[in-house]
């Protein structure tokens, strides 16, 4: 222990210990010499004899240092200092390498930063590790939001029986309300959440102002009209005035007292994080959400607290301290099974699990992690190019440093020692690059997020901005990445540079032909890797974006500008509403049906001799006219068919072509398994429509069936075609809704199909920009790498070229050989990249039942050949410029070069 301490101390008083050691050795040598002199030797001879008897002075010192202190730490500091001096001595090299690494690490850290903010960061609540989201799993394996929906009765049961959970919190998905502050003001739409009274207290969220809910404020139905405001809304509406506590705000006509303001960082716990304005006790749900509960059951309002059907309540729970999550989960699962054992569920719950809470509800889903990993891998390719680049630069520099390294080795430095020193230098380099990269990523993350969330604003969705500030995860990730890349690009050059013939190195003859051969092979490999990876990235990015680029101006197949979705909650009076809407002069059409670009379901279909999966969407009479989808053959649905949910179908043109090529499909039959229960229902085809881009704006639906069937999962509702402008039409629609079903008013809104198209296009635009930036980055890095290395290699051959010219080679021959050698790694890299991309494409299209012609057209895309030509051109220029310079040099000068 004492020794450990002394060694540690010696780390910091190295120079003093060093002086003392030198003094002691000198004394020792003097004594030895004296002895020899006494034996009769002449002084000079005695001195030498003493040295011989003593052994290597420097070796002794080294061993001494080893015993004296933690020599590796001392050396490490020395290495870092030395590396720093070296980097500063070559600012050009350092800057280039740091920029390359900053870009590579920056892109990587950007993606990781967003992943971290969305999936890894804990919610801003007390002790977030113990707060979980309760998730259910169904026999049908159905996945999505419905996994987070529970009945109020289930909530009560869990709350009252659990021993492992210290609190169970219930929230409803966001509700829209009409709010007004004073009499004069026009009402505005606000969104908020109904939550159980223990919501804030059990999450451990302290109010910024006022109080949160009292523990019994959610008991009596409709009795406690109080709200806690979100910080954002409070700032916007009340300018952060503390006197707002105690004031009242009218929501859907009922006055609520403002009791508190939530802290700024707390933005809610919804599975889909939307901006919110307020929270209210769960007992106010009837008043807040008039459409609450199933529209078909008017008795619902009296029963919902005891009902076991799912009104969609999300549950969070806090696990008691000291109880492991697995144990709490086992108990919760058991309780839910007990609760459900007597009930008949339409889709049986097979398990209940407790999930980690994070910004995004899929944070625990393996598919989400897989997607994140895939994107990380793609951006890592850019980093790989950057690493290959820097490694090549280090190799080139290693050649220039051959003499320095040779001298150090001759003076007794071991190879391991020098490798360590070189590695310290490259890690230092990667840390510099990493620091710049992480700074860069902080900016890029925000930029990427703003562009992505901006996309959704077209749909009147306001996503909560996640906390993108780098935290300890990002820091550790960046550090790990730096160390890894530092070793990755540093190791090969360090090994190469230290494999020197001492004699040759000191005499500056490191550049013998044999040695160079081995080295340029490694260089060629690195160069080829860069080119391969760049080609792969280019192909990938083009594949990702070309479908979008080519469909940018394409007709979606339906009318977007004047067609609107009427956003209402579910209403039992939908048909009545539609009838009244048809009479409005402001509208030219009204129908009930699915909405394009809004999620579709793909059902198994048996048609002709084929078994396929097809898109199946809902359509009523008047639907095709309202959406502007043209009928090519046959007819649309009649009112009677729509009302009776008749077994008739209209198919798209491409479906007809695919299933009955060259035949008339009218009158033929298809059968569909719409509920995925292996029960097929028969439909008769009555019409054929023009093709549309219903599922995805970038491609025409391969198979699409329109049905009036009730069995289709609903993704739409009332669709109207507007004759006048939106404002006038909305006012007219509002008056109709007012008279038919006023409970729909709070959420009433009209969103044009253009909005949905814009969202999809916007999303693809961001994706395209991102992919474009990535490939541009890879191309630039590869270009710099190709030029730097090729030019360096050729210039190193100045002497050889001189000899060749002196021996009578023509300049044409010389240039040709230089060109061939310079472009060989580039060409090989391209070939490998191309082959890999083609191979991946084959695998991809083999696994796809409808091979997308767009992917195949990647290889017909001009930009990929542009990229390839560019890389080749760079290699050619990089070979020719230094070669012609070498040719102009007088052979005699060239021979003395270096």
């Amino acid at each position, binding site marked *: 222990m*004492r*020794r450990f301490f*002394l*060694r540690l101390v010696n780390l910091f008083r190295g120079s003093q210990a060093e002086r003392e*050691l030198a*003094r*002691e*050795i000198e*004394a*020792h040598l*003097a*004594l*030895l010499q*004296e*002895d020899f002199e006494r034996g009769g030797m002449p002084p000079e001879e005695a001195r030498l004899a003493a040295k011989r*008897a*003593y*052994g*290597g*002075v420097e*070796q*002794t010192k080294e*061993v*001494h240092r*080893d*015993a*004296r202190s933690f020599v590796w730490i001392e050396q490490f500091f020395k290495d870092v200092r030395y590396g720093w001096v070296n980097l500063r001595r070559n600012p050009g090299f350092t800057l280039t390498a740091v920029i390359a690494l900053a870009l590579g690490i920056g892109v990587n850290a950007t993606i990781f930063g967003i992943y971290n903010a969305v999936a890894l960061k804990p919610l801003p609540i007390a002790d977030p590790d113990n707060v979980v989201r309760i998730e259910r799993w169904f026999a049908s394996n159905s996945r999505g939001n419905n996994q987070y929906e529970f009945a109020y009765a289930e909530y009560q049961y869990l709350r009252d029986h659990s021993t492992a959970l210290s609190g169970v919190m219930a929230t409803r998905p966001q509700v829209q309300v009409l709010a007004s502050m004073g009499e004069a003001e026009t009402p505005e739409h606000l969104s908020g959440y109904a939550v159980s009274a223990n919501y804030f207290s059990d999450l451990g969220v302290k109010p910024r102002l006022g109080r949160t809910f009292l523990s019994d404020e959610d008991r009596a139905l409709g009795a406690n009209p109080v709200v806690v405001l979100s910080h954002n809304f409070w700032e916007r509406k009340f300018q952060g005035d503390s006197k707002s506590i105690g004031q009242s705000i009218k929501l859907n006509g009922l006055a609520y007292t403002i009791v508190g303001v939530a802290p700024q960082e707390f933005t809610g716990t919804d599975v889909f994080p939307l901006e919110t304005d307020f929270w209210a006790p769960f007992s106010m749900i009837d008043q807040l959400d008039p459409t609450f509960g199933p529209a078909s059951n008017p008795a619902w309002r009296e029963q919902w607290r005891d009902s076991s059907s799912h009104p969609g309540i999300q549950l969070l729970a806090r696990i008691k301290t000291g109880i492991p999550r697995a144990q709490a989960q086992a108990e919760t699962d058991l309780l839910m099974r007990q609760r459900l054992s007597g009930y008949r569920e339409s889709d049986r719950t097979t398990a209940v699990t407790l999930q980690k809470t994070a910004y995004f509800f899929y944070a625990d889903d393996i598919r989400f992690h897989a997607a994140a990993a895939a994107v990380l891998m793609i951006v890592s390719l850019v980093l790989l190019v950057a690493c290959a680049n820097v490694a090549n630069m280090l190799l080139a520099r290693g050649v220039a440093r051959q003499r320095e390294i040779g001298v150090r080795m001759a003076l007794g430095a071991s190879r391991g020692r020098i490798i360590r020193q070189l590695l310290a230098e490259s890690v230092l380099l990667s840390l510099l690059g990493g620091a710049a990269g992480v700074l860069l990523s902080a900016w890029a993350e925000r930029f990427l997020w703003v562009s992505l969330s901006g996309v959704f604003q077209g749909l009147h969705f306001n996503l909560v901005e996640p906390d993108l500030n780098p935290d300890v995860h990002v820091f550790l990730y960046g550090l790990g990445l730096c160390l890894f890349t530092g070793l990755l690009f540093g190791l090969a050059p360090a090994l190469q540079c230290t494999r020197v013939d001492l004699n040759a190195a000191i005499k500056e003859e490191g550049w013998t032909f044999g040695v160079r051969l081995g080295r340029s092979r490694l260089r060629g490999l690195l160069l080829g890797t860069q080119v391969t990876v760049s080609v792969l990235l280019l192909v990938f990015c083009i594949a990702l974006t070309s479908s979008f680029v080519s469909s940018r101006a394409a007709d979606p197949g339906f009318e977007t500008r004047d067609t609107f979705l009427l956003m209402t909650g579910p209403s039992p009076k939908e048909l009545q509403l539609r009838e009244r809407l048809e009479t409005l002069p402001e509208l030219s059409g009204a129908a009930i049906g699915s909405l394009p670009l809004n999620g579709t379901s793909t059902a198994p279909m048996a048609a002709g001799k084929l078994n396929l999966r097809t898109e199946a969407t809902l359509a009523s009479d008047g639907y095709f006219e309202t959406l502007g989808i043209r009928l090519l053959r046959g007819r649309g649905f009649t009112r009677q068919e729509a009302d009776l949910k008749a077994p008739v179908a209209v198919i798209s043109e491409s479906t007809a072509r695919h299933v009955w090529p060259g035949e008339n499909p009218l009158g033929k039959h298809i059968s569909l398994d719409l509920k995925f229960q292996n029960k097929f229902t028969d439909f008769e085809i009555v019409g054929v429509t023009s093709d549309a881009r219903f599922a995805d704006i970038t491609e025409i639906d391969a198979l699409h069936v329109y049905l009036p069937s009730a069995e289709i999962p609903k993704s739409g509702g009332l669709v109207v075609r507007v004759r006048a402008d939106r404002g006038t039409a909305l006012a007219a629609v509002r008056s109709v809704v007012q008279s038919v079903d006023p409970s729909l008013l709070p959420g009433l809104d009209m969103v044009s199909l253009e909005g949905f198209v814009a969202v999809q296009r916007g999303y693809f635009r961001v994706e395209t920009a991102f992919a474009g930036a990535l490939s541009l980055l890879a191309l630039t890095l590869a270009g710099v790498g190709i030029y730097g290395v090729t030019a360096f290699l050729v210039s190193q051959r100045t002497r050889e070229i001189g000899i060749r010219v002196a021996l009578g080679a023509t300049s044409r021959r010389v240039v040709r050989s230089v060109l061939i050698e310079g472009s060989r790694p580039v060409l090989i890299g391209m070939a490998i990249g191309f082959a890999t991309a083609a191979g991946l494409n084959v695998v991809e299209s083999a696994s796809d039942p409808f091979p997308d012609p767009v992917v195949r057209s990647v290889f017909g895309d001009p930009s990929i050949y542009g990229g390839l030509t560019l890389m080749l051109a760079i290699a050619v220029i990089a070979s020719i410029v230094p070669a012609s310079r070498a040719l102009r040099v007088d052979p005699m000068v060239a021979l003395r070069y270096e």
Partner: protein
Amino acid sequence: MSSDDRMAVLQGTLDLIVLRTLENLGRQHAYAIATRLQQVSGDLLHLNQGTLYPALVRLEQQGRIKGTWGKTESNREAKFYSITKAGGKALAAETLRWRRMSGLVDKLLSEGA
């Protein structure tokens, strides 16, 4: 003498030898210790005089010996080492251990013969 007959110093025994020498001779500088070692071993030990230093540092850091600067008889400056109390104890313990060890090895070797 062929180099095969010379013995490399067994790991860890150097500390023991140095301590013993200092106990016998009292305060000594490194050169004297080295000379003494050579005399005793009769050149049997293959030892550069410099090899002594790591052992000296180690022992000093462990508090078993203490070094002070002083003058030799020939009025030269040198660092003199002397054994400390802790060093004496360590020497006794190490000696015992060494005896046991060598006794054991001896026994094993003679058994085989």
